[in-house]
């Protein structure tokens, strides 16, 4: 057994497996149209822009900014800690490319809109799932 905290995990399909397993090598990937290079999230079978079915997962930088957030205090379901910072982050690769996630490795009171963040993963290795989470961007 791994020591990963309890999470309700995604149902893995052929379409989403590359997304949820992507963190195995520490890299975040999204589906991308190989014809027009449009990033697609959530995963689909056809590019909404050019209708091509030629889609593949490609790495993104893992850098993002907090588009909005909430400090969640309510225990809706088992979670590792309360309160926690739920956020929608937006990626520089494409306007409107967003992911709902949590902000970790900082105090919840420090989370703010436009905060630069970078991806980190919570490993559920037994399930081949690496949940992408975000932490304050480390200045090199």
């Amino acid at each position: 057994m791994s020591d990963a905290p309890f999470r309700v995990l995604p149902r893995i399909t052929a379409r989403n497996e590359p997304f949820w397993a992507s963190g195995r090598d520490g890299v975040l990937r999204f589906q991308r149209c190989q014809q027009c290079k449009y990033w697609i999230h959530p995963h689909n079978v056809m590019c909404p822009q050019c209708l091509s079915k030629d889609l593949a997962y490609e790495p993104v930088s893992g850098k993002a900014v907090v588009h909005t957030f909430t400090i969640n205090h309510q225990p809706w379901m088992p979670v590792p800690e309360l309160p926690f910072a739920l956020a929608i982050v937006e990626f520089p690769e494409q306007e409107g490319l967003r992911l709902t996630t949590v902000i970790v490795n900082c105090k919840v009171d420090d989370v703010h809109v436009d905060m630069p963040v970078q991806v980190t993963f919570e490993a559920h290795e037994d399930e081949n799932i690496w949940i992408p989470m975000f932490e304050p961007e480390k200045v090199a």
Partner: protein
Amino acid sequence: MATKPEHLTVISGVGQSDVGRRLYRDPLELTLDACVEAIHDAGLTTADIDGIATYPGPGGDPPGFSGGGVVDVQDALRLNLGWWSGGLERPGQLGAVIDACLAVAFGLATHVLCFRSVFEGSAQGEGGRAAVMPGGGGRQAIPRASGFMEWVLPYGAPSAAPWIAMMAQRHFHEFGTTPEQLGQIAVNARKNAALNPKAIYTDPMTIEDYLNSRVIASPLRLFDCDVPCDGGTAMIVSHVDTIPDLRKPPIRVEAVGTALRGRPSWDQFDDLTTMALRDASAQLWTRTDMKPSDVQVAEMYDGFSFITMAWLEAMGFCGKGESGPFVEGGQNIAREGGVLPLNTHGGQLSSGRLHGFSFLHEACTQLWGEGGARQVPGNPEVGVACAGGGPLAGALLLTTSR
């Protein structure tokens, strides 16, 4: 020029069952109580009803979300139907009523019974909200998440509360909206609920009480969240040609809005501060010569208080980003003396989460002058009923003056 299809339809009657925090009654009984009252309110009998429209159809998830579907009601009342529709995937809860208008205008039915019932209060029992959430108290942990839940359950956010909270936070960021402003939606609702004999919460609440309530998901506090309850609501959509057969003067459907022009998602929608309400509202105003300033009473969804703020802006009752200043102090939205009396029954925040249909029920009640102690002074002749949040939105503009 052909008649505008909305003008072929009227609302002829409304009904509502007993409403309570936890009634522990058979939910089908609540459903049928509302339906029968609406039929009689219109001056009709079950033999006259030839259509049914409902949201969300039968279903058990989350527990208490539906007190019955088309089949339950058709069989209970032995209705002969020319048209029927029930389901979840439509422009908000009132999308079912708008579907009924389409069916009547198309001639598939003459009198459509529309209903929505819930028993979320009893379903939660004493276990509270967590009892009906995935992995929570009374339920088996669901093994895996799919659909939109794929993107939120792994992060511990199964409720729309944190999703809407993030929209509110973005609004606060872009427009400087404050907790004191947001709180006026809840304070106004509570004040009106005190005059509604069916309301759940009627104790006086000040803005200080609101600010002292616990944070659920910032910036939303406990009193920004509606209260689960048990009850059923119904109304009849009738063809304009049947007006001579009706018991009461009809409420005319002047315009409806159902548009969804952004992505159907709680986190990918382009402008999270407006949601789909932007599109449904804009479409509604393209279908009428009336203007927002003609509206004398507004019943607008408050599953979470911020959604009402977004509806105020979307419907043009104030400018984009200006709902905070508009509601500040509460005078503009007051039942007495307000430029736009708002949620005169107490909204879902204080009168109970009857889920969308209660806003249309209340708009009709006000336009018929049947509001009793909570009647808007001067008897309004034009009102709106708006329901939905996130990617779900449907709106109706109603009048007795045409």
